[in-house]
């Protein structure tokens, strides 16, 4: 027996050895940093993992991250953020805001062509604007554009947007992708064939979409900022995160988002990968449906906040790859109010507050009753996000300690959004927001943003916050705006719209053969078209015309 065991061990060792040896011999020059200095070459493919398939490949209709992963490479907006978070032109060569903030003039680039060769003009911008404000179009972005008073085409390459009121985030909003007029005109955009076969202006052209398998894009040789070095951009749908990690270890995926436990995995797993970690512009929260009782009472939410230990969640769920949240702005935002203290953890005080609200354990079963009736609520979150699932479980445990009974329900993402969030069919949710860089969060917290597909689905209603958000977006001076956002965070401390749990870090692994990656405040993908792979390390080859 003993000798047999030894043999198996030997064989396993041999295999391991063979595996590592064969890989390292293939890629010996990979660690060679000097190759960074040689000049970039074209070729190879970049394969990025996605947990689910895209819905529409139309930037006006799609709002899911899987779709935007693809759309970001196919389409351009008029403006974009550069690597240091400053707004700069994209399809617009330059732009100019009038002194009173009511007018913006965009000068468009002249040599931009749609992927089918048709020139891009001001007509396309106007068409996109008209589509966005058309009430029959199923877009979640309409409110960003219905506030426009007038839209004028000055000439083929100049447009002028006129607003009723000065609107500070309006420039950022023109980062909205522009769609081609000649493709969509005369078709119902909600069902157009181009929603599955997009034509854009971006660095990559659409090539093919195999439902639930992969979406393949190819480099656009006529891209106005130059042809990208990487020939193919491929989104591979791998619905299981554990399998994604196995694929990464086999080097069949080039970019994978890492979970905190994967981030701390053995170094040998990342032999061929660079890891990138940066604070994400996002927060995760526990939100309550304030149209239901007793969630409409801010005292209830404050009591829940006292009963939840955010540090436990960050330690247990994020393995400390994140920071405790105090409000809707992450620390790297200029609107972040550092004077707001971290919320207190005091279950005893929470229990007292609940008693004042009419919660009491009448039948001595260990669970609190509310006004004489049995009380429990359901925390819903989406499937496939393990952090949220774990957070829900920790919250459930912590609330159990003060006698609040909760159920955890985990639902597939699109159902969750369409059936539960949009219909207000929930008691409590654990969700997160990825934020825009401009601190205007009117659409998240304003009491008018509560239509089915709008974003204040928690139904937060605080007239002072409404007023402040309205005011802040009309002012261009950052210092003045800052004061207003500071004030909003002070109000939200007393009347929280939800329980802000944590600001997560975003972590990913990118294959080491990709050169030219330049981590910046905005992330790593800002200069994707400049990424390249040395000839000797290219893994995939294409017979490009």
């Amino acid at each position, binding site marked *: 027996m003993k000798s047999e065991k030894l043999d198996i061990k030997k064989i396993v060792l041999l*295999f*391991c050895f063979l*595996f590592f040896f*064969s890989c390292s011999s293939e890629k010996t020059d990979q660690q060679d940093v000097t190759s960074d200095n040689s000049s970039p070459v074209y070729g190879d*493919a970049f*394969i990025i993992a996605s947990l689910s398939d895209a*819905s*529409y490949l139309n930037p006006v209709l799609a709002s899911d991250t899987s779709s935007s992963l693809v759309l970001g490479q196919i389409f351009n907006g008029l403006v974009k953020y550069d690597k240091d978070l400053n707004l700069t032109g994209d399809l617009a060569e330059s732009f100019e805001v009038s002194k009173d903030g009511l007018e913006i003039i965009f000068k468009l680039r002249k040599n931009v062509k749609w992927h089918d060769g048709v020139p891009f003009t001001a007509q396309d911008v106007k068409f996109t604007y008209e589509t966005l404000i058309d*009430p*029959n179009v*199923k877009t*979640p972005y*309409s409110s960003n554009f219905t506030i426009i008073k007038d839209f004028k085409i000055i000439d083929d390459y100049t447009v002028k947007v006129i607003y009723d009121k000065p609107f500070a985030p309006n420039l950022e909003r023109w980062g909205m992708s522009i769609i081609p007029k000649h493709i969509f005109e005369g078709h119902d955009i*909600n*069902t157009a064939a181009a*929603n599955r076969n997009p034509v854009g202006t971006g660095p990559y052209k659409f090539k*093919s979409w*195999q*439902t*639930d*398998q*992969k979406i*393949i894009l190819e480099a656009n040789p006529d891209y106005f900022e130059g042809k990208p070095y990487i020939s*193919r951009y*491929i989104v*591979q*749908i*791998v*619905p*299981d995160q*554990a*399998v994604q990690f*196995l*694929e990464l*270890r*086999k080097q*069949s995926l080039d970019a994978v988002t890492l979970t905190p436990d994967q981030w701390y995995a053995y170094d040998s797993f990342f032999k061929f990968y660079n890891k990138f970690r940066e604070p994400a512009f996002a927060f995760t929260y526990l939100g309550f449906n304030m149209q239901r009782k007793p969630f409409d009472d801010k005292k209830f939410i404050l009591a829940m906040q006292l009963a939840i230990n955010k540090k436990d969640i960050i330690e247990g769920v994020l393995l400390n790859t994140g920071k405790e949240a105090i409000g809707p702005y992450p620390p790297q935002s200029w609107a972040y109010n550092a004077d707001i203290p971290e919320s207190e953890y005091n279950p005893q005080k929470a229990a007292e507050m609940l008693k004042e609200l009419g919660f009491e354990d009448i039948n001595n079963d260990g669970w609190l009753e509310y006004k004489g009736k049995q009380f429990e609520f359901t925390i819903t979150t989406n499937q496939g996000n393990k952090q949220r699932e774990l957070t829900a479980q920790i919250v459930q445990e912590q609330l159990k300690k003060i006698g609040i009974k909760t159920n955890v329900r985990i*639902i*597939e993402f*699109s*159902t969750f959004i*369409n*059936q539960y969030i*949009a*219909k207000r069919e929930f008691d409590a949710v654990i969700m997160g927001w990825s934020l825009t860089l401009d601190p205007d969060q009117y659409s998240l917290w304003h009491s008018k943003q509560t*239509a*089915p*597909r*709008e974003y204040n689905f928690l139904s937060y209603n605080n007239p002072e916050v409404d007023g402040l958000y309205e005011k802040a977006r009309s002012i261009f001076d950052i210092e003045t705006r800052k004061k207003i956002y500071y004030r909003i965070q002070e109000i939200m401390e007393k009347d929280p719209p939800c329980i802000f749990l944590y600001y997560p870090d975003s972590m990913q692994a990118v294959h080491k053969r990709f050169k030219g990656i330049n981590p910046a405040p905005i992330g790593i993908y800002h200069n994707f078209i400049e990424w390249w792979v040395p000839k000797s390390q290219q893994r*995939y080859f*294409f*017979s490009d015309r």
Partner: protein
Amino acid sequence: MFQYLIKRLLYSIPIIIGITVITFAVMYFTPGKPVDTMMDFNPNITSEAKDRLVKLYGLDKPVHEQYWNWFKRVIVLDFGNSFKDGRPASEKIIERIPATILLNILSIILMLIVAVPVGIYSAVRKYSLFDRILTVIVFICFSAPVFWVALMLMIVFGLWLGWLPISGLTSFDFNELSFFAKTWDLASHLILPVIVSTLGSFAVLSRYIRSGMLDVLKQDYIKTAYSKGLSERQVIFNHALKNALLPLITIIGLSIPGLIGGSFIIETVFSYPGMGRLGFDAIMARDYPVIMGIGVISAFLTLLGNIVADILYAVADPRIRYR
């Protein structure tokens, strides 16, 4: 025989209708209505527009009338449009069929190739060491969680040995490969999912065959055969085997609906674009046209499988005659 067939086919009509009634009822009583989903995509919808949509979809009508309208469309094979992305439900289902059938046929074939000899051998060598080892293996196969086995196989064959791809149906450069490279690419992607989806059914089937064979070996005519001085090989392969394999017909017949059924777990773990993931997603998203489409097709195939099994029985076993 022919008369019997006609009779069976006629009988299956009310059964199919019954199945659609039940499917429709279950769907109707599930919380959430189709039009709600449609309207949730539109933030600016007014209450008049809501009423108009409800009318448009006939949801203001009584249940029996709604069913009748749905039924009329299904007769001409119109299953309606998916609520998720507006594509026809039939198109979404048909798109999945090739990959699903491919996986399932291969696993049925593999299952037969392995399970039949194993079942026979353990019956003939009943309680031998080999039989006992096989029994243990069979029970391990049967009770091991599919997703775990899948991940382990991925680690061993995909990662350590590097012989096979881990997930997916084809490599992304599939279309640019030569014919032989394409075949190998597809085959190598299929090996692990086929093995994993065979494991459970292999265990069950080999047990069936074993007990079928044991029953047959107890029969008098087998003793007669032995007493005539025939060799064991002749007795087993010429006399016993045919009768022992009869239950196989039922099992194969019943696996016909499984051909397009698909398994959600296996398909998710292997990122396999099959019917299981489509069906699961449709149910989770209350995508009624797709759910009803899949439901009707599998009901139809189940009945078909039953009839085929009955016919094959009559063909294989002269003792059975239908009237």
